[in-house]
């Protein structure tokens, strides 16, 4: 089952390994990203950063959707991490089961609107968020589990 879909441009890092993995009780992290599977250095850094007891799978967004839809991920408590809001939308449109979409760290861009200390969204991001909400996902802003969780209302 899917525990959480998180948008975090840093993918796996301190907040993930020390706080989120324990908080949501996942046993497998799926990085859904089109660039990382072909980037050996980045992939190795992520493999070394993962918590030792957690399985890590790295796939393109398309392959991630196919894997989830095939049922092979059903036996895991899955934590899906994507780099940006567009990829989150692709995941939500591609498969069922994303009840919660968490915006953790979203980079500041030109003309972006701030939704939380570490979350900045563009017009396109807001459109993507609306699409995910229309598909039934609850979208929230929460950097670390100890922070207040704020549901995004656009």
């Amino acid at each position, binding site marked *: 089952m899917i525990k959480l879909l998180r948008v975090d441009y840093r993918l796996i890092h*301190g*907040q993930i390994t*020390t*706080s989120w993995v324990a908080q949501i009780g996942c046993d497998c992290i799926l990085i859904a990203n089109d660039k990382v599977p072909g980037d050996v250095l980045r*992939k*190795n850094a992520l493999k070394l950063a993962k918590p030792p007891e957690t*399985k890590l*799978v790295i796939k393109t967004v398309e392959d991630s959707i196919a*894997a989830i839809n095939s049922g092979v991920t059903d036996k895991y408590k899955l934590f899906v991490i994507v780099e940006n809001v567009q990829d989150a939308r692709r995941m939500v449109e591609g498969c069922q089961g994303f009840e919660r979409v968490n915006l953790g760290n979203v980079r500041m861009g030109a003309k972006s609107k701030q939704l939380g200390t570490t979350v900045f969204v563009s017009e396109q991001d807001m459109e993507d968020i609306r699409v995910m909400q229309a598909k039934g996902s609850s979208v929230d802003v929460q950097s*670390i589990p100890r922070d207040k969780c704020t549901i995004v209302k656009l």
Partner: protein
Amino acid sequence: MRKILLATHGEFAAGILDSVRIIIGDEEKVRALCAYVNPEENFSEQVKESIEGIEERDELVVLTDMLGGSVNNEFMRYLNRPGFYLVTGLNLPLLIALLTSPEADTVRLIQESLEEMKNQIVFCNELKAEEENEDF
């Protein structure tokens, strides 16, 4: 209650506490004591006060920056004090392990955190990532 005091030469203690805030959030039970920053303050007195401030049934874990350094030396003289634990070699993985472990026994918590921390001090150039990609 278990309290943690970070004591270092200069601002290291305050800085590492700021790093903790980013990674796991605010920690009310952790305090930083930055020694020798203000010449008007007497560090020996500050150490004495922090030790005398340990109330009955409370525990104080002090993490200092360096074995043999004056900061650690100041605390060494209180090792017989009940409820006082002194660990030196402060670093972020150690501090995070101490703060996130559910272990209730302080001695075991310190022992386990020190073990866990050792795996996190690594010469990364010599690491080899697994060649194969994991799949479901």
